[in-house]
């Protein structure tokens, strides 16, 4: 893969520093994980998963159909009886064990996730994997303390949870779904995204390594129809979905009129609000991590920059200068800041939205960087002269594209930030503490960061307003979604 440095005449060009692929052993094919065993799909269907950085086929994976979904739900139902009857402290032991194994295998899992997803090893190593382990540790701690969670004495689990997760943080989204479900005594049938099934299948192996009873966790790789079959299955008691708002709406329609409990974590168009008294250098860093972390493929990304007009020029100059230092390239290189877009389909969507932005008159600027010839890539991009009416200010792009809007007063900032169909995240940058509190109170977003962005912690509830979904994941609040309360 071509070595890319933003400044070509820089004598201090960083030599390639790739993380070794040899720490992970990817099998040529994987089955479905049902009732503690890897098995082929009933109809024998398989699909290929590729590395988005190189388009290399990594493995062939069994594709679950309706019959497999039924088998997995039956296995989960059967396992539910004993699993839910276990004392919380016993369930906790399994979760602690899983958390420790994840830590022990974190290098292997980080490399695997980087290969299958395309995100930089720096992120899988320093963000995804530590958070995955932390999430299991955190909910392991709750398993024997549910009496004290605020839902009355001895709150009961729901039963079988059907969970469908996205491709942007494959293992982390799995942890967000599975850890609270198991801690509260539910069993699960989980479908990873079709472009990133591998880490979930490695997790299945970890479940076996931890001695988790058969059927408590079932992993069914597949496409949208597999997810739809899980959601629609009569014997599923709880549906949890993270993904696009369009699919979320379909799921809500399917579940309507049933007794299934539903939580949805959907799209976003987060406003990152920079006031004129902000710590500018740190705000620039926050904007960068807000929209370019994971190539912007983050539902809570700060994809709308709202900057006070009086500091607009200064801030944008700093931001553009900073973006020219981003290193785009081989995701396995430890110095890579920007990796590959997850799929050709997603790249096409980003490209189309950016073209719309240009056609509607927004001014495009992209960081000067050479894109590799194979794989799916998009240069860090920002749009200026954007107004609320532009598509790039309203639609979720889910890519490394920032729309810059301006405001004059705090009232205008709040009004523009809230003027969105979404309400997942927001950021406030100011050195004035009283302004942080006053503005945060009026923002209709599930997460509001002050002088930082994209910081995650298992103790903190996460979720949206409006079309960003409902229900909360993480923290004590995250237990409610899996309890009959």
């Amino acid at each position, binding site marked *: 893969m071509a070595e890319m440095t933003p*400044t070509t*005449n*820089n*004598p*201090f*060009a*960083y*030599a*390639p*520093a790739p993380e070794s692929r040899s720490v992970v052993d990817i099998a040529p094919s994987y089955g479905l994980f049902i009732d503690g065993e890897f098995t082929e799909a009933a109809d024998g269907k398989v699909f290929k998963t590729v590395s988005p950085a190189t388009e290399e086929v990594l493995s062939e994976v069994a594709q679950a159909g309706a019959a497999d979904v039924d088998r997995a739900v039956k296995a989960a139902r059967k396992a539910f009886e004993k699993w839910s009857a276990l004392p919380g402290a016993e369930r906790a032991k399994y979760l602690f064990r899983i958390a420790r194994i994840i830590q022990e295998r974190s290098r292997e899992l980080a490399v695997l996730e980087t290969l299958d997803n395309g995100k930089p090893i*720096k992120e899988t190593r*320093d963000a995804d994997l530590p958070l995955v382990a932390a999430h299991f540790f955190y909910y392991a701690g709750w398993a024997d303390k549910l009496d004290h969670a605020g839902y009355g004495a001895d709150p009961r689990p729901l039963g079988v949870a059907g969970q469908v997760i996205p491709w942007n943080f494959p293992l982390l989204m799995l942890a967000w779904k599975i850890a609270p479900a198991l801690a509260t005594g539910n069993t699960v049938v989980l479908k990873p995204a079709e472009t990133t099934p591998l880490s979930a299948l490695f997790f299945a192996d970890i479940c076996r390594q931890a001695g988790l009873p058969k059927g408590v966790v079932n992993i069914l790789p597949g496409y949208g129809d597999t997810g739809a079959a899980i959601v629609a299955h009569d014997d599923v008691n709880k549906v949890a979905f993270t993904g696009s708002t369009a699919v979320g709406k379909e799921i809500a329609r399917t579940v309507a009129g049933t007794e299934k409990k539903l939580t949805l974590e959907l799209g976003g168009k987060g406003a990152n609000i920079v006031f004129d*008294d*902000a*710590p*500018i*250098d*740190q705000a620039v*860093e*926050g904007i960068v991590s807000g929209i370019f972390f994971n190539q912007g493929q983050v539902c809570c990304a700060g994809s709308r920059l709202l900057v006070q007009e009086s500091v607009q020029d200064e801030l944008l100059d700093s931001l553009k200068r900073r973006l020219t*230092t981003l290193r785009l390239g081989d995701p396995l290189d*430890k*110095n890579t800041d920007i990796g590959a877009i997850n799929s050709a389909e997603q790249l096409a969507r980003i490209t189309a939205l950016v073209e719309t932005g240009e056609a509607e008159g927004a001014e495009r600027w992209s960081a000067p960087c050479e894109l590799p010839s194979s794989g799916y890539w998009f240069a860090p991009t920002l749009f200026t002269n954007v107004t609320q009416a532009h598509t790039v200010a309203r639609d979720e792009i889910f890519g490394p594209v920032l729309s810059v809007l301006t405001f004059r007063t705090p009232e205008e900032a709040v009004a523009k930030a809230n003027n969105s169909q979404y309400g997942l995240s927001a950021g406030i940058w100011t*050195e004035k503490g009283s302004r942080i509190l006053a503005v945060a109170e009026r923002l209709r977003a599930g997460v509001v960061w002050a*002088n*930082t962005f994209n910081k995650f912690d298992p103790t903190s509830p996460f979720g949206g307003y409006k079309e960003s979904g409902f229900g909360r994941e993480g923290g004590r609040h995250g237990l409610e979604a899996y309890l009959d309360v």
Partner: protein
Amino acid sequence: MPTTASAFADATASDSALRRFLHGLPGVDAVGLEARAAALGTRSIKTTAKAYAIDLAISMIDLTTLEGADTPGKVRALGAKAVHPDPTDRTTPRTAAVCVYPDMVATAKETVGDSGVLVASVATAFPAGRAALDVKLADVGDAVAAGADEIDMVIDRGAFLAGKYLKVYEEIRAVKVACERADGTRARLKVIFETGELSTYDNIRRASWLGMIAGADFIKTSTGKVGVNATPPNTLLMLEAVRDFRLQTGVQIGVKPAGGIRTSKDAVKFLVLVNETAGPDWLDNHWFRFGASSLLNDLLMQRQKLATGRYSGPDYVTVD
């Protein structure tokens, strides 16, 4: 282009104007600054990049001895080491300078001769800076007369913390005048803030701008004589200051972290900060220095390791 002083004439017209200017600089979010410094600390510098960085770091060292026990013999040993850091490998770059007290300048100058190694002298009642202005200026004058190429002055931290910014400013101006030689040339002036005593990042940013508008050629973190000296975050902050100052005035100013940088790994991390904050224009010993003593031997051992593939140990570098 107007001179730096005239560009900031309004800001330095009175104590209150200077205060308004310095307190009008953007604030520093400590958590964000430290996170950025830590993130840059994870850069992985290998093979050719490492070899380049090690040689660059050696060439940026102000090899320093600032002890009460300094003798002419000690200073001569230091000077010889600066000129030929590794006697077994003459391709090793020489250090940028040796840094000594004013009374050792003549000895140091004699030792380094015309090798290209400069002689820097601390002055202005280093390290505390607690003396009358005329005493400080005499201290500077002595060092310059003895042949110092560079003067490392300390600011009056007491005045700074008391909010008497104009006093600090005028003192730097006066020292700058004292750096002038009879032939019209001038010793380069490094201004030491003692960041450990200024304590907050906001103060470090204000001190950086104060030093730059007063005419510093270099801004320097610390004396090496207090608990907290150069750190990645405070150096990152000062690199942002020189970057912004050049954008605003066209004048480039150097940065010198000093004290506490002991390993090659640390030095390379600082060079990454330079590269990705101020930019490659500062990757030169005219614009970036390390105030250090034990760092040099660690760089030499790493350099030998890269050349031979094995660690030779401390007996294969000179102890001075």
